[in-house]
């Protein structure tokens, strides 16, 4: 174990490199990569690594980057790629293909607003477009969490009970370019943590076809199996948390991270780095006697509904801060979790930081002041308007 100063982009690439090396006695590693701000540094770092039994293919588009991963995973190799924003949108079709082919591709996404108009800064709108298509989604708040989540994503994606792609999200620049001390395990530890990649449906010797035509009820059953496998993730993840701790000596964060939430009457709910800011606000306002807690949804797919429902139980007021918007509806996290709150809870959605705007502690304090004035839930509100 060493400690290195790394950006989150580089951390993701280093975790992928260690995962790649851990499969050197298996069928190796093969990745397709393509640059896009603010994810570029991740693929650059990966391209600088020497990987025994590995190849990183510099392709001509994000669509092909995932295309290479699909081919490589179909051939039984470990795979990884990284992208952002319009790159993810361009990759969209193949992300769905990788998911529906049940291939364990790991994808690091530096979240960025979809354009045009061109804006290179963070929001979660890019990754959330893929929420319905069978990819596991993690949203991270700091460098170490991101590094650990990438390693865990390989283990989770490749678990026989799961077998599907996993996305690990970091907000562009806010996290992707933040340099922080990161604990880096020894290769031997990663070797112990990650079994050799074994894709049961891989192209071998016997003739069989991956991705061929299906008739309606077959597709329905495959979708349902995929859904059921998604629901296995919580159980598998809990096992992985224990093994991670046993091997690396630190705890892999829970799917939902609660902060001083138990005795709180008011809860701030968010994803990604806003969650870290919310925790500081909780500390500050707790000192003033407010019974405040924070909840950060780290695993968004599958959505840990039981954990969220339990955290929402008994709260008087809940502020859900979304760095995203489903146009015509409101924040996605709010929309997906509002049914999990008890009847009578004042549940208010704040859309904040779209296009990369800062969401600072004072902004959250303002939202909380607004929330305190409300006796019933209202329509989603824009942070700047409260």
């Amino acid at each position: 174990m060493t400690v290195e100063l790394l950006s989150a982009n580089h951390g993701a690439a280093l975790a992928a490199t260690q995962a790649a090396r851990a499969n050197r006695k298996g069928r190796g590693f093969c990745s397709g990569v393509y640059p896009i701000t603010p994810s570029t540094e991740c693929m650059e770092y990966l391209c600088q690594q020497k990987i025994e039994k590995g190849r990183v293919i510099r392709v001509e588009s994000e669509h092909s980057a995932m295309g290479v991963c699909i081919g490589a995973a179909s051939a039984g190799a470990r795979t990884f790629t990284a992208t952002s924003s319009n790159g993810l949108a361009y990759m969209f079709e193949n992300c769905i293909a990788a998911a529906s082919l049940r291939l364990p591709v790991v994808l690091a996404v530096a979240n960025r607003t979809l354009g045009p108009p061109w804006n290179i800064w963070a929001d979660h709108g890019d990754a959330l477009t893929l929420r319905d298509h069978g990819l596991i989604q993690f949203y991270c708040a700091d460098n170490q969490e991101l590094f650990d989540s990438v390693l865990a994503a390989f283990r989770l994606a490749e678990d026989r009970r799961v077998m599907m792609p996993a996305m690990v999200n970091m907000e562009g620049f806010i996290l992707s370019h933040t340099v922080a001390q990161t604990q880096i395990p020894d290769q031997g530890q990663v070797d112990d943590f990650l079994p050799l990649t074994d894709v049961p449906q891989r192209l071998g010797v016997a003739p069989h076809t991956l991705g061929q035509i299906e008739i309606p009820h077959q597709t329905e059953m495959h979708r349902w199996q995929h859904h059921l496998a998604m629901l296995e993730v919580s159980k598998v993840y809990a096992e992985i948390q224990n093994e991670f701790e046993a091997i690396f000596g630190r705890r892999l964060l829970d799917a939902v991270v609660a902060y001083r939430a138990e005795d709180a009457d008011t809860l701030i709910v968010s994803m990604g780095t806003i969650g870290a800011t919310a925790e500081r606000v909780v500390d500050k306002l707790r000192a003033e006697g407010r019974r405040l807690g924070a909840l950060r949804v780290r695993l968004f797919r599958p959505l840990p509904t039981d954990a969220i429902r339990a955290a929402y139980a008994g709260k008087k007021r809940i502020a859900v801060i979304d760095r995203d918007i489903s146009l015509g509806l409101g924040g996605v996290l709010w929309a997906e979790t509002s049914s999990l709150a008890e009847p009578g809870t004042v549940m208010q959605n704040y859309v904040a930081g779209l296009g990369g705007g800062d969401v600072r502690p004072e902004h959250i304090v303002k939202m909380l002041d607004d929330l305190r004035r409300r006796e019933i839930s209202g329509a989603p509100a824009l942070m700047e308007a409260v």
Partner: protein
Amino acid sequence: MNEPALDGMVETALDRADPLFRKGNTNCGGCGMSLTLQMLRHAVAERPVHLVIPASCAAVAGGTFPQSTFGVPTLMTTFASAPAAASGVASVAALNGEDLRAIILAGDGGTFDIGFASLSAAAERNEDILYICYDNEIYGNTGGQRSSATPAGAVTTNTPDGKVEQKKDILAILAAHRILYAASVSLAHAEDAHRKLRYALDIKGFRFLHVLSPCPTGWKSEPALGLELVRLAVRSGLFPVYEIFDGKRHVVNIEPDFSDEALNMYLSLQRRFQKSGLAAADLRPAIDRNWQNLRALSGRIVPARRDG
């Protein structure tokens, strides 16, 4: 010998025991892709092969889950991704020291149009892929729309008055990538086709074969006349059969007789050319220009047309 030996039906002792394309498939009668696969079966013999197939008639031909019409492990990809996915398949085989041929079987839509960028990129990277484009000059799978491989004058469902634009010169484009081997393949010239398939199967790097693939459904022609149509296209000079080594050395394999009779026959046997009333005289200048260029490239300065 320029006569068909296989005709798509004949099996020989050299053929792969399990056909690449099994019986009971759903292809239309007279489909050039079926014939391409029978020839490929013969050439492949017992070499280990994985097929990578983008959205196309070939993807439909693969059959419904869980059956497999293809006699080898096959990956169906999204429309534009076969070259990228095959790069992954071939790379992993190479990393594991496996003697595998990654073969893409793609239509003209997946090759000339939507898959063009990934094709160009895989060619540029010289991936170890054998790319076979069965060119039926139409989006057959969606019911017959124009592609950039559709020849001018052909009626399609979205060019009801006949396509105006010329067909893309795909081999010249591939040659400009300086790939190891690019060749056009006539299904009516089995020996030449077989030699090219064998050669392309056994070299390492990016190889591209362009097959003129009769499509009775799209061409509005008699299913039984597919090979005859290809033969006429070759004879008349409309479909030059040649190969290009390293993007430089051009070798013409089948000498046409540039017969207007053959060209008129080719056009009149397909209802897709009926509306535009295309005749040999309309196509001849472009064919002549194409052959003058080909003569210059192949170092054989012979007049495109022999007068008298």
